[in-house]
């Protein structure tokens, strides 16, 4: 089974570049009742969807449940998928809903994505250090994955989830706004803060001399 993770994804790829060309065919086949076509789609996206639900819920069990529910829901509602968006975007939206429900159930007071956030001066970066050439090559693949999930887990949900959808899943600003029921300006301000906070957190690992 081929896997999308092996495709070289150019940095800052446009969403359309991430999608394999056979996706619409597989979706059509799955809609017509071809179970193995749907399984191919599941195999293709299970890792990404699990990372998504994991990063939103920050809880393994919830993440697994949300992922399962997302795929089952997608299968059940396949007939309603009209093909005017990408299947993956549609799937992400379902998974985000399932994951947010879990997160809100577990932490009802903490999570409000649409809280006003102040856009004061504290976003101005303080530590400004160059990272030097290819900072990630200083880490093993597994070490790097651990660093990335650690720093993203430390972000407030409002920033974490917007960053996840926009920069990791490569949804557009408008798609992210729609999936989270936020306004476009709200997505933009959360994205800016999320990016800056992550930059700040990665700084301790990637600044020059951070690792021998």
């Amino acid at each position, binding site marked *: 089974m081929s896997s999308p993770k092996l495709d070289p994804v150019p*940095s800052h790829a446009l969403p359309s570049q991430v999608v394999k060309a056979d996706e619409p065919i597989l979706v059509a086949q799955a809609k017509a009742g071809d179970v193995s076509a749907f399984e191919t789609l599941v195999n293709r996206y299970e890792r990404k969807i699990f990372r998504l639900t994991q990063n939103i819920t920050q809880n393994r069990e919830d993440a697994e449940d949300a992922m*399962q529910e997302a795929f089952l829901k997608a299968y059940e509602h396949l007939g309603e998928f009209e093909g005017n968006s990408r299947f993956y975007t549609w799937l992400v939206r379902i998974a985000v809903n399932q994951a947010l429900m879990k997160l809100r159930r577990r932490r009802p007071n903490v999570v409000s994505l649409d809280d006003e956030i102040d856009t004061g001066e504290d976003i101005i970066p303080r530590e400004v250090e160059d990272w030097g050439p290819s900072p990630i090559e200083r880490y093993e693949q597994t070490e790097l994955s651990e660093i990335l999930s650690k720093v993203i887990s430390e972000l407030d949900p409002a920033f974490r989830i917007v960053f996840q959808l926009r920069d990791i899943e490569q949804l557009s600003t408008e798609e992210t706004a729609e999936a989270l029921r936020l306004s476009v300006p709200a997505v933009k301000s959360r994205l800016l803060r999320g990016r800056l906070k992550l930059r700040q957190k990665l700084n301790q690992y990637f600044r020059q001399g951070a690792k021998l």
Partner: protein
Amino acid sequence: MKCKDVVKELADYLDEALDPTLRMSIEEHLGNCKDCRVVVDTTKQTIDIFCNSEPAPLSEPTRERLHQALIKRLRRRP
């Protein structure tokens, strides 16, 4: 243009979503301000690192449970 103005526009700048005039004044500032150059560059790297990171494979039990749940459901037609 001041450093804080650059930071405010940073997300749109990196997404190439700024109008040309604003982009030019940012680039002019970047030409003269090393701190902002580093912030722009390391923020861009932050995005690229996450965007290019590969999701880990599911653990065997997690994958098994997912596929069992699907098999159970897929036996019935949608």
